[in-house]
């Protein structure tokens, strides 16, 4: 099972097991991880599932499409080089994903 390690803005860590093929966003929402809102349910419309991905794992991620890139300019907490929308990050079998959630999404 893939595992997502969520760190919140205060530094508290929560590990959540996910299913291969599910997104980091879905994994968070289904289990009530508070730092992810995801109003639009993953259709790239709301930019409320913003996460910061651990730098050394960035190269494992799918490339960013233009729409995600533009949406990231409107996040509640300003984007950084390691920003992604977690609805676009699908989990692979056995993967460990390390993400930090911003202080606020709206």
């Amino acid at each position, binding site marked *: 099972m893939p595992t997502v390690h969520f760190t919140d803005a205060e530094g508290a860590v929560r590990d959540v097991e996910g299913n291969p093929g599910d997104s980091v966003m879905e994994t968070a929402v289904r289990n009530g991880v508070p730092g992810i809102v995801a109003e639009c349910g993953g*259709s790239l419309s709301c930019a409320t599932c913003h996460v910061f991905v651990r730098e050394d794992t960035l190269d494992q991620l799918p490339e960013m499409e233009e729409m995600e890139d533009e949406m990231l300019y409107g996040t509640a907490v300003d984007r950084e080089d390691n920003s992604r929308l977690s609805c676009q990050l699908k989990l692979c079998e056995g993967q460990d994903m390390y993400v930090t959630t911003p202080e606020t999404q*709206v």
Partner: protein
Amino acid sequence: MDTTTTTTAVPGETADGAVRTGLLIIGASQSGVQLAVSLRALGFDEHITLLGEEDHRPYQRPALSKEFLQGTVDSESLIFRSNQYWEDHNVALVKGERIERIDKQPDGSGVAHAASGAEFRFRRLALTVGARARKLQVPGAELDGVVYLRNADDALALKAQLDGVQDAVVIGGGFIGLEAASSLHKMGKNVTVLEYGPRLIGRAVGEETSEYFLTAHRDRGLDIRLNSRIQELAAADGGGRVSGVVLEDGTVVPAQLVLVGIGVVPNTELAEQLGLDVDNGIVVDRHALASDGTTVAVGDVANMPNPLPGSPEGERIRLESVNNAIEHAKVAAYSLMGRREDYAGIPWFWSNQADLKLQIAGLTLGYDQTVVRRDDERGKFSVLYYRGGQIIAADCVNAPLDFMAVKNALAKGQNIPADAAADPAVVLKTLATDS
């Protein structure tokens, strides 16, 4: 949306078999789910019952007309929260129960009676009952093959009869109609959209946006007919299944499937029976409280004061959207905790139709000026709406930067002056000024 999981055991069962709960939420909807989640986040420690009519766990509706219909997501991925989450948070999910009558005391407590005979005793009541699809009122509307798209069972029924359908007619050129029409077209059907009004999405967007969508959808292969007057739905050889739509001018549009998307009717029956004020939805105050001062009504069913900052006193609106279901539920959660908080955030909406991604920020109520930003080379199109020189809303098609700029400006109480906004080369965000 499996139907195999049983109703979670309710800890507060009384000797007479009735369920006893702190808060009874009627409507296992987007707003019902958010209300329960927000209350737990605020420290509400009483037992919560989240009750719905459908035999499914609470699920997200937006994908029903898009990804779910097209088969690119499965039903499991539409589920809001795992069963474990509800168990961990002392929320009992009750599926497949329809409340028919409620007896309520002046202190807000009472008993809800279900059609099955089950009783639910509550200390406080929340109505998150939503709206239902408006029914088509023409001869033949009851034929097989005439479907609606409001809930999961509708979507499952629709999917189950798609094989063998070559020609589909969508009645209603609003969000649901155009989303479903685009999905059906993508799945290889010939799709005709019949709209009664003179333009598409007339209730939600201005004329410029309607015109843009009309051209864009026609370019993508939809046959769209405005000002359509339907005479009846016909069945070939007098059979029970629809075969075409007959218009008043005698035209017959062949259809083995007719999808009706002509708006919704708020489910106000329980509120009326309770004697609550009802007027195009359940009338609530700024804090989601109904006229009895104790019941909260949230989401699609609630007629509330216009939440957009700076809107005129007394102006009211009923919003049908995911964002409103969420934000309104948060306001209601505070109310149930005895706190009075205002609606936060700027109302926003989205609709994905083929490769057209529409995002709307704000509310256009009362607009007196529009500015169009158009970049056909990059396929971007936005309309900005102004009221007395102040920006109040924007429709943005494939233009998330514009959407975000307007949403953020509205949230900060800023303006984006109209005179400079028309040039699509100008980055909208840079024009925002404190008004």
